[in-house]
């Protein structure tokens, strides 16, 4: 039965829908990152955000249930990965870690294994909490996910037995090049695309259209949502870990409201209903943000310099989100996957 549904999903597969976004992400990452070290860092951070937005798309986009709680999976992923790769000296001597639980002091993995462990941690955390959260609908669900974020943050921020509490954990191993984060993101894109096409993804989208009707069709909404919540938690854990490995440090504040806002904004601006929306939203929001950041620092962008006061960037991003919600609630992609512009597809045919 699984095989059958897989094939059924594949019948709607379109080569351009997945391949072009992959090329765009890979191409622009490689091209831009070669231009300067600051751009390389920007690309690395953007890839982390893209991973996070993909994670949100899997759940929010398909189920229609808003989640403010994914930051908690990213936090957990970052903590796991950070503690697994920070050197023993730091764990033993940093002031903020003097109360760290001994097994965590001894916990040691290499970069690859730590990424795997953080993805698993994110997935397991989502599985545990999803059992409660997935029973809720609409607004109650939105607020409960907010509560989840609040609890996770509150505990990690204050407890110095399981992490650096409100301090930064320094010395986390960093990605030596762009290759690993890029490959991870491209892989995740392929997975998410096929997940959206799969029977599970399509069933979940059906529940979004009509709660009652799908219940009538014998779909177990809680279970279907739960599965996608787990997959999404897994990606979020990975995103959190990647973020730690780009910055070389872990600090819980990095994954709280600002992070939640920024990644949700990317998803909504691009359009939550499709992979292309997630990719587009991340590119547009990060791109605009980076350009404004450079202008805030009076650095020319393609030869143009505009002197902006510090703080303009965040205002523009928030404003962009609000304006998109007012004028195009389905995002720039309008909920569609990537399509070649009409004239291009005609050229190909002829």
């Amino acid at each position: 039965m699984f095989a059958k549904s897989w094939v059924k999903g594949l019948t709607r597969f379109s080569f351009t829908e997945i391949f072009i976004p992959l090329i765009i992400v890979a191409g622009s990452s490689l091209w831009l990152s070669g231009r300067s070290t600051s751009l390389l860092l920007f690309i690395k951070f953007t890839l982390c955000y893209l991973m996070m937005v993909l994670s949100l798309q899997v759940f929010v986009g398909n189920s229609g249930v808003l989640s403010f709680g994914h930051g908690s999976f990213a936090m957990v992923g970052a903590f796991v990965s950070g503690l697994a790769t920070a050197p023993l000296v730091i764990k033993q001597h940093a002031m903020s870690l003097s109360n760290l639980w001994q097994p965590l002091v001894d916990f040691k993995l290499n970069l690859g294994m730590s990424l795997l462990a953080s993805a698993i941690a994110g997935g397991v955390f989502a599985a545990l909490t999803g059992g409660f959260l997935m029973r809720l609908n609409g607004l109650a669900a939105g607020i409960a996910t907010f509560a989840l974020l609040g609890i996770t943050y509150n505990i990690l921020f204050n407890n110095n037995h399981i992490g650096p509490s409100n301090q930064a954990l320094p010395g986390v191993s960093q990605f030596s090049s762009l290759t690993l984060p890029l490959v991870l993101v491209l892989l995740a894109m392929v997975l998410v695309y096929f997940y959206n096409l799969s029977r599970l993804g399509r069933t979940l989208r059906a529940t979004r259209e009509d709660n009652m009707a799908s219940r009538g069709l014998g779909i177990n909404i809680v279970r279907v949502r739960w599965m996608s919540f787990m997959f999404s938690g897994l990606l979020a854990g990975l995103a959190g870990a990647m973020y730690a490995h780009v910055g070389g440090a872990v600090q819980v504040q990095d994954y709280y409201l600002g992070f939640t806002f920024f990644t949700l904004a990317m998803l909504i601006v691009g359009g939550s209903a499709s992979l292309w929306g997630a990719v587009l939203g991340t590119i547009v929001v990060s791109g605009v943000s980076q350009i404004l950041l450079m202008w805030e620092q009076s650095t020319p962008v393609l030869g143009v310099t505009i002197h902006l006061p510090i703080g303009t960037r965040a205002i523009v991003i928030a404003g962009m989100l609000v304006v998109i919600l007012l004028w195009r609630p389905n995002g720039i992609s309008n909920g569609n996957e990537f399509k070649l512009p009409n004239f291009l597809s005609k050229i190909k045919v002829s």
Partner: protein
Amino acid sequence: MIQTILNALSLGGTYALASLGLGLVFGVMRLVNFAYSELITIAAYTLVMTNQLPIMVSFLFSVVVTSLAAVLMELLIYRRLRGAAPAIMLVASFGLSKLLQQVYELCFGALPRSASIAPWMSGELKFAGVSITNASLITAILTIVLLLAMRYLLNKTSFGIQLKAASADFRTARLLGVRANHLISLAFVMSGVLAAFVGAILVVGNPQVEPMFGMNMTILALVGIVIGGISSLPGSALGGFIVGVILSLLNTWLGNGRVYSYSWLFAAVFIILLVRPGGLLSKGQEMERV
């Protein structure tokens, strides 16, 4: 001991006011207004910036500014989103909240602005061997008066009846002549006035105003309306009150563990939502409909 109880009651009252402010707007348009936090913040900024004026003038000024901000918020943003999916409105209000925080940061800087507002407030009052601060006594009296006033307004005036009716069923209320635009604008004005009071109470206790000043209060007030029953106004107030009292008691009793009092509160939200998705005072599963 008396001080503890009085603190708990006045904190409870403050949260009840904040929850009521959120609940009023939720009632008429099913919107959870995260940007309520920025209304509280602007009220506090106004008080700090107009500190040289007499306290009553400064406060009146802050009420005007805050309710004006609330009305503009409705007019420019939320009016266009009326009838949109609750998730869309939720994200929009989240975005608006961030937007205003950044605007405040640009205008007033990221560092706290402070001023000593009504220094006599921190004085103490002693009688029968117990001493309480002026501030907590005034807060307690103020919140009781305000809650009674709100009660009167909701139960005895035409506006209150319209508000309750519109919260239950806006469509039918309109068929009877309730003017949607007026009512929603008025609900925002009242929400703004309540935010001004909340902001004033907060700023007296902690005159360090920064762009995220109102955030904690708003998130916890939100917890309050979820606990109490999001579509019932008395429920909102009660829920807010419960949150304030519990938080105050947790802070006293948990000692060093008080840093986790938010976690306990949020955990309570989980459990209540699971058992009663519509909150403690709800009759049915009203959240489902939303």
